[in-house]
């Protein structure tokens, strides 16, 4: 129990350090970016005078030295205030909340599909390694893992949205419809292509890892012994295979939060899907420091929690860690 408390305290401390580090690096990067937030805000064709622009810059505190700006941001953050987004003209917290809900639907769908499908494909390929099915799958996975997500997104868009017209080309709801009138089916209809894009890129990683692990298991001494004791291939997969690859697969699944988040930034951009990733891109292009830092902080917590869950589950599921030393 004492160890557990120590572990959690240590983890929280590491997360805190990471948050400070990431926010600092992100801040330095945005501040030194050539994009002028005021220009980006007013647009190039507006006829706002230089004096007015100066007033805006002063109001946003852009003229303060960077160190002071960063410290102000930290101070406000400690009070729960992440500032106001320049691009969205709303408090950052509110944007994060709205956008996350949209993103969560996308990421969760892709996470479940790529996890389940990748696991199943990996099990089949690993069990029958070097068979035709395995080779086809392996080739598919290698091609997919070396293909950028946005390209797959564009391809799906061209085929299914433009050519076949089965799915909308973008957004999460039909354009020009009141939010209250949007049905769940319309939401799902808009979700299909981005989720598919994200799943396809996720599947190969999970499938290849699972395949490798399954092959290791099939080559192990305990499988040889199981065969010697009359277990059929199917019984071996069921009794020993799944048991031994489940832990790494689950761990990997939670540790894949970072790829998931990274992939969603690209997929959302291609499909103009109004999620967090999309918000990050907009914030970046407009030099929206508070929003960008907000998304960065959020992604840190998101990925960190994923890894933390992976670690916890590993300890919980693996008897060697759970039950400790020899009796």
């Amino acid at each position: 129990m004492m160890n557990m408390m120590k572990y959690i305290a240590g983890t929280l401390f590491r997360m805190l350090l990471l948050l400070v580090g990431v926010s600092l690096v992100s801040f330095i990067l945005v501040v030194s970016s050539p994009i002028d937030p005021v220009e980006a805000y007013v647009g190039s064709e507006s006829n706002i005078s230089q004096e007015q622009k100066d007033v805006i810059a002063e109001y946003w505190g852009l003229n303060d030295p960077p160190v002071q700006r960063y410290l102000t941001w930290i101070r406000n953050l400690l009070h729960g205030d992440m500032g106001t987004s320049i691009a969205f003209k709303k408090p950052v917290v509110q944007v994060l909340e709205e956008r996350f809900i949209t993103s969560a639907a996308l990421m969760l769908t892709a996470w479940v599909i790529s996890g389940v499908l990748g696991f199943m494909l990996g099990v089949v390929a690993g069990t029958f390694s070097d068979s035709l099915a395995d080779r086809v799958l392996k080739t598919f996975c290698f091609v997919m893992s070396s293909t950028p997500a946005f390209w797959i997104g564009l391809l799906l868009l061209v085929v299914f949205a433009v050519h076949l017209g089965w799915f909308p080309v973008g957004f999460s709801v039909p354009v020009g419809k009141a939010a209250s009138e949007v049905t769940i089916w319309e939401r799902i209809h808009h979700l299909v292509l981005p989720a598919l894009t994200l799943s396809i890129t996720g599947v190969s990683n999970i499938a290849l890892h699972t395949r490798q692990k399954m092959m290791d298991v099939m080559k192990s001494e305990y499988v040889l012994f199981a065969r010697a004791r009359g277990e059929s291939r199917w019984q071996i997969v069921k009794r020993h295979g799944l048991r031994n690859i489940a832990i790494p697969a689950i761990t990997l699944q939670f540790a894949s939060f970072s790829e998931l988040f990274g992939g969603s930034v690209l997929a959302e951009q291609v499909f103009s899907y109004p999620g967090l990733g999309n918000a990050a891109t907009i914030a970046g292009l407009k030099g929206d420091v508070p929003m960008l830092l907000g998304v960065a902080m959020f992604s840190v917590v998101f990925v960190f929690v994923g890894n933390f869950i992976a670690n916890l589950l590993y300890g919980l599921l693996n008897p060697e860690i759970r039950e400790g030393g020899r009796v």
Partner: protein
Amino acid sequence: MEHKEPILDIKNLSVSFRMYEKGLEQKDLKVISNLNIHVDEGEILAIVGSSGSGKSLLASTVLGILPKNASVTGDMRYYGQPMTIELQQRLRGREIALVPQSVEYLDPLMKTGKQVVGVRGTKEKQRLAFKRYGLQREVEELYPFQLSGGMARRVLVSTAVIGDAKLIVADEPTPGMSKAMAEEAMSNFRTLADEGKGIILITHDIDLAFEYADRIAIFYAGTTVETALAEDFGRGPEALRHPYSKALWEALPQNGFKPIPGTQPYAGSIPGGCLFAPRCLYKTEECLGEIPMRTLRGGEVCCIHAD
């Protein structure tokens, strides 16, 4: 005297592996050649030989669990019936049991009890087997990594007695054990043999084999050069038949530690004729021809000069 059919009778067995060499060129790598052994009910046949002589492969061959790229020729019979793949499938885990070397052969994530039951046993039989080897009920709930060395040994033997095995193949059951533990393991096998089971004991510990086995088959480069009675080893090199067995005897620590020059040929570079000929003092022209296994002084030998 009633003549009973041997449990396992192997004649002229050869095992080779198909390997790929440089690109697509295939090559058959022969690892066991012209091997002859038989095991009767109630006896322990020890198979001794240095590492790399193909001993462990023999276990996989008998059980029919060789890798896909292996091919087997020769005559293998179980109680007189030809050993087909179907028969092996039916027998393994039932009438033929393997006792592996170490706890590594147990699934690390499956509790011992469930694992010993396997797919062909029952909970009751597992409890009986545990009781027989003095394993507490709690051991059922332990994972393999929680077993002590002695417990692991007994758990592994339990897997063999849970079914109604007639033939038990023990693959190197004693390395890394203390003298007392090895003796306990061996006396367990002796008891099983005395109950009428046939036991193939694959080992490189000649002393233990001599002490507990009935007959000893000497392995050299994937073949049996001699099958001797265990007593022959006590009587010295004159009682043994093959030049290699005699050399092996003289190489034992208690007999002077005398080595002979040369090395065992590697699989893939197996010479024709007698495999020991390149190192043999009695080598003649005839040794390069086909050498059959023949009966001699109550044992068997694969040498034309032995008398």
